[in-house]
């Protein structure tokens, strides 16, 4: 056991990456040729974008990959300043012991437009010494000039059976017994997100010898904040101020992102409707409002304000 399983069982070469076989075949060509264009990996969370990038980098750069590789993710400072200095300086240097250098920028959709523009110049200036791998959730948030300079690979959510295989493999490696139905439930909740699936698996495994259906359900319900349910109940019963307070608590203190909040509110509403606790007409109106909120947040509005406004629709 060494730390979280998500890292321990991160596939280290392209052959072992689950799902995306199509993409992996193409990427393997780059390894054979020892050259690659600028790449862009797009797709939802937990489908193997970072894993593919790291594996590709290791295969192409070989032994000296650490020296010739720069990884910057969304939490690193990536303003225009970084692009102009750090990335530029890295590109300028000659690769040592490898055909070229690789820069991996994770979650490029979170970079500012200015930084993206600065990046675009660098992508064409240093083609001889450096290649870029960009990853993002939504390719629509990337400026066109960058998209046009990249080969774009669209990663799909990982299929249920692939996740099952992987989870079973991990459980076996870690010497845990499991119920087949438990794995099924994990797959259902993970929604094609391998990272989430493995996290749920490890959390369930930490609670005892055998991974059972009950334990998985326990983990999933605990990991999904109860607050969301409470918040919606408060709003539906007319206590707007109370609902707004819980919303702020969840977003400000726990740091849940606006996107996650929308997802969880959506899931909660769907659950209520399926259990017959909600009038169909109200349900449709609420879904419309949620969709609207989702759109506005993506358009660049302030997620907290938008969600507060969404809560008023529940009154």
């Amino acid at each position: 056991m060494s730390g979280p399983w998500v890292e321990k069982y991160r596939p280290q070469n392209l052959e072992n990456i689950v799902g995306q076989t199509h993409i992996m075949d193409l990427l393997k060509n780059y390894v054979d040729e020892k050259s690659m264009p600028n790449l862009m990996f797009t797709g939802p969370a937990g489908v193997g974008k970072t894993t593919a990038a790291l594996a590709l980098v290791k295969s192409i750069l070989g032994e000296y990959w650490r020296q010739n590789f720069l990884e910057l993710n969304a939490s690193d400072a990536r303003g225009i300043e970084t692009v102009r200095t750090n990335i530029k300086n890295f590109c300028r240097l000659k690769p040592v012991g490898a055909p070229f250098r690789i820069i991996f920028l994770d979650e490029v959709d979170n970079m500012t437009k200015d930084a993206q523009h600065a990046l675009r110049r660098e992508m064409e200036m240093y083609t001889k010494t450096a290649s870029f791998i960009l990853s993002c959730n939504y390719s629509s948030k990337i400026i066109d000039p960058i998209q046009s300079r990249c080969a774009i690979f669209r990663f799909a959510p990982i299929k249920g059976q692939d996740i099952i295989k992987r989870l079973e493999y991990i459980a076996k490696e870690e010497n845990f017994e499991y119920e087949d139905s438990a794995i099924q439930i994990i797959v259902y909740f993970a929604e094609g997100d391998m990272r989430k699936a493995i996290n749920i698996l490890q959390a369930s495994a930490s609670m005892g010898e055998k991974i059972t259906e009950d334990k998985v359900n326990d983990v999933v319900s605990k990991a999904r904040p109860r607050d969301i349910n409470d918040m919606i109940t408060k709003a539906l019963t007319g206590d707007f101020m109370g609902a707004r307070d819980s919303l702020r608590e969840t977003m400000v203190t726990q740091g849940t992102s606006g996107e996650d909040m929308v997802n969880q509110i959506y899931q909660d509403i769907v659950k209520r409707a399926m259990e017959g606790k909600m009038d169909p007409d109200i349900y449709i109106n609420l879904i419309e409002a949620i969709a609207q909120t989702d759109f506005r947040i993506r358009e660049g509005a302030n997620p907290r304000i938008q969600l507060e406004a969404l809560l008023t629709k529940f009154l």
Partner: protein
Amino acid sequence: MRWTDKYRPKAFKDIIGNGKQKKEIEAWVENWKNDIPQECLLLIGPAGTGKTSIAHIIASNFSEFIELNASDKRSYDIIMNTVGESATTQSLFSNERKLIILDEVDGIHGNDDRGGTRAIGKIIKTSHHPMVMTANDFYSKRLTSIKPKCKVIKINKVHTNSINALLKKICKEEGVIADPVAIKELAKRSNGDMRSALNTLQVIADDSKKLELSDLDTVSQKDNTNNIFDSVRRVLKSKSIDKIKKSMMLDEDPTLVMEYLAENIPREYEKPEEIKKAYEMISEADLYFGRARSSRNYTYWRYATDFMGIGVALSKEETYKKFTRLTGSMAFALMGRTRGKRALRDRIAEKMSKKLHVSNSVAISMFPELEIMFENDELAYEIASYLDFDDDEIKRFRNRKIPKKVIKKMEKRKLEEKAKTKVFKESSLNVAIENKDKTEKTSQIEKNTESENLKKDKKKKYSVKSENENKNNNQKNTENKDKKEKKETAQKSLFNF
């Protein structure tokens, strides 16, 4: 002459409030005078509470002092050249210590003052002289590396009554005829900031020699929140487009005004229908602020202002005839209150993002599962040491510390494993020890092919040896090595699969 300078305290006894802190500082000075070197002093507190005054009073106890404040450029080179030089040298003519004052250290700018904090860290380490720093923001990122090296003293806001008394005294000395109610109001509005209170008083009363309540409205206080509240009240209470348009013309960040409006909508409006409509308008305004931001097209602001002003005003059916207590944005208050908590959260996320190749927000989304994993003592220890968490960070995920017993057990197990693998590879003579305590991990290691074992052998021998030499110091080191090896094993088995 500015009254803030004229009435600046000259000695410790003149300082208002913060009695306990004062004593600590006096003791610090006393110790220096008796040639007992002290830690560097870091005074943290809001504006106008007397930090700089204290620093200067301290300075009056020493023969010389050097000061560097926010108005000076404070990059690495500049700090080292000015302060760094004198920090390690002594004055030519006297043996006395000289004081180094660095004002507003949290104001060191990331870009223009590159390397400033690093220079300060270096000076703290090497200086033979007393040093005092001041800062406003306890949680500032720039202080994280400095704080642990200093004696941190928190200077608190001065109580309204103390300010009230001070203002009265000054009015008397300056011959100002003042309405006691006005003085009280002025003290209250200054919100613990003596400098701002004194400045306001001087502006009003320096020439006229009188202070009345009505004067306070003409002179703008440090913050404009009162004006914001007027606008908010107007929007919530009125339906006249003309009046509202005028009240929305105010010298404030419009998104801040929006926050204040949103905060108070459900306090004033009572019918759900009204709240819904009004909030829809806020949401619409916010959308256009967002669009303005992302497209740099600030003409969008005029729509946003109309939405949040007139739109919100017209959402009510009728004006309520009641008094509503308006408040500032509670969301901001919450952010302020939970700042330490959020800083901790971000620190954890940062550690995770490095090790797990994910961004901070993805790391945060993994917290709930981690919380469950941390209920298991042994797993908690494994993960915490893998991610290099400290005690505070561990406490984020579980209520109590990991029991010492478990830590000991895990550490022991690791050592044994290492010894075991060594024994296993060198010969099978010591099978007895091996059988004594078999864990599932040995089986994993046994999976290794013989050739790889040989290759690793050297490395392990070294680590076991060093352990014996200095168990405590090297424990961490070997642990890391151990982990690395295990990772390799895992990878290896993955490939085999």
